[in-house]
């Protein structure tokens, strides 16, 4: 058995609101992701999915529990070192790029962080854009000059620049049209196979998670209430909550 690329153990996050009661957003979550594996995290808004991802990427500090990335404790690792192993792709690609800088600048910065010499950046950016199906002209475009789907491709190129071991996709295709979503999902699955990347795929579209992921975790009110192979979870759900979720799909 290979060592998991990601191990999450009894993870907790409490948000404290000014003078008000604390809110337990993530309540003792544990799971592993194997190298190259694609794990779907599904559940309704407010169930804690994004909070889990944000803690893995060190955008938030956990209140309790541990996260091991490639065997190292994330909370005790330098943020930059975490970024070299995990890259995140968000729902609104336009908002994840600096509006005053070109897509090429954004991707280039990622390359510099990865330790690429500045002299080779342009060439490398062009290669990355090509890998996500964009021509090198996109290097000079600004985020507002491209479509949502094109911008999400650029965001994937930026993530690839680091050659991460784990991609965190937080509703990465939820804002896209279905035809564009189909393109992005097939691009992701092609890239994951090619680079041996693992993926934690957060989404609320159960049918998409079933077709794209190797395994599914269902979150509800901060806890993982059910997990298993996609067909297992969706065809014979054990929990009432999962049944309700599946029954709601139109």
């Amino acid at each position: 058995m290979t060592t998991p690329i990601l191990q999450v153990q009894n993870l907790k996050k409490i948000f404290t609101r000014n003078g008000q009661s604390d809110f337990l957003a993530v309540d003792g979550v544990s799971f592993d992701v194997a190298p190259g594996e694609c794990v779907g995290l599904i559940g309704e808004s407010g169930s804690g999915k994004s909070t889990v991802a944000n803690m893995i990427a060190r955008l938030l500090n956990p209140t309790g529990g541990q996260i091991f990335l490639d065997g190292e404790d994330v909370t005790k690792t330098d943020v930059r070192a975490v970024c070299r192993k995990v890259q995140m792709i968000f729902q609104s690609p336009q908002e994840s790029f600096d509006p005053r800088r070109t897509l090429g600048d954004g991707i280039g910065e990622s390359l510099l962080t990865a330790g690429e010499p500045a002299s080779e950046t342009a060439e490398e950016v062009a290669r990355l854009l090509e890998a996500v199906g964009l021509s090198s002209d996109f290097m000079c475009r600004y985020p507002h000059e491209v479509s949502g789907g094109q911008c999400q491709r650029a965001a994937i190129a930026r993530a690839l620049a680091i050659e991460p071991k784990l991609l965190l996709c937080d509703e990465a295709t939820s804002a896209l049209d279905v035809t564009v979503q189909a393109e992005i999902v097939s691009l992701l699955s092609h890239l994951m196979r090619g680079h041996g990347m693992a993926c934690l795929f957060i989404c609320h579209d159960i049918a998409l998670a079933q077709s794209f992921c190797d395994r599914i975790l269902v979150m509800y009110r901060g806890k993982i209430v059910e997990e298993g192979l996609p067909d297992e979870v969706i065809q014979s759900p054990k929990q009432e909550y999962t049944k309700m979720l599946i029954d709601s799909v139109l």
Partner: protein
Amino acid sequence: MNEILQYVNVTTSYNAVPVVHDVSFSLGEGEILGIVGESGSGKSTLLKAAMGLLGAGGVVTSGDIWYRGKNLPDLSEEELRRLSGAEIAMVFQQAGASFCPVRRVGAQLYEAVTAHDAISEAEFTDRAAELLHKLRFEDASRILESYPFELSGGMMQRVGIAAAILMNPSVLLADEPTSALDVSVQKQAVEEMCLIRELYHTSIVIVTHNIGVVRAMADRVIVMKEGRIVESGGTRDVLENPAREYTKKLMAAVPKLRLRRGA
């Protein structure tokens, strides 16, 4: 079926760039019509064109939109304002965002109703509570007394849909009313709109990119691409046996749940 809303060769442009080209369709009384298509296909523009909401630079350059003998693009702002809400109501993606955050829900709805109708607050409260009750809200009086932030996004969206029909309009124009919602709340919102049609015989146009929503509620569907209608017909016919390449591609891209082994 009598037609209540008729689009005849409608072309609209933004800053002289045409975005909807020569579109014609009609909505029958008590009918639910779905308009699907990708972002930028012109579906929302069609609804906005009817209500004079195209904004600065947006204009209906040719064609008519008929509602009960009136051509909507020809009406003055004042005439449209009188129709709006009372006879033709609209619901948007973020109904919660149309509410003022620091005033109670009930007070805001009362204000909207008094713009058209001289009724007392007590009479309004009865009417609103009865409507919410009929639409299967559990605690109508609590909702009316709440501030918007005290209700969940899904609840606010359901309240927004209910609020749109407070004046018992003949037509409800719904622009992506379920797109920001979780699947479970989405289903409730769809059921709410079906119930509205059943109880009040309201004619509904629903614009959405969600094929599942259209399948669940629309009698007929129009598929749009780049400002043109590519296909239209009965919902089942269009979604299950699409005639056009584009519709086939669209349907193939929709993730489908495999509910049975080997299915």
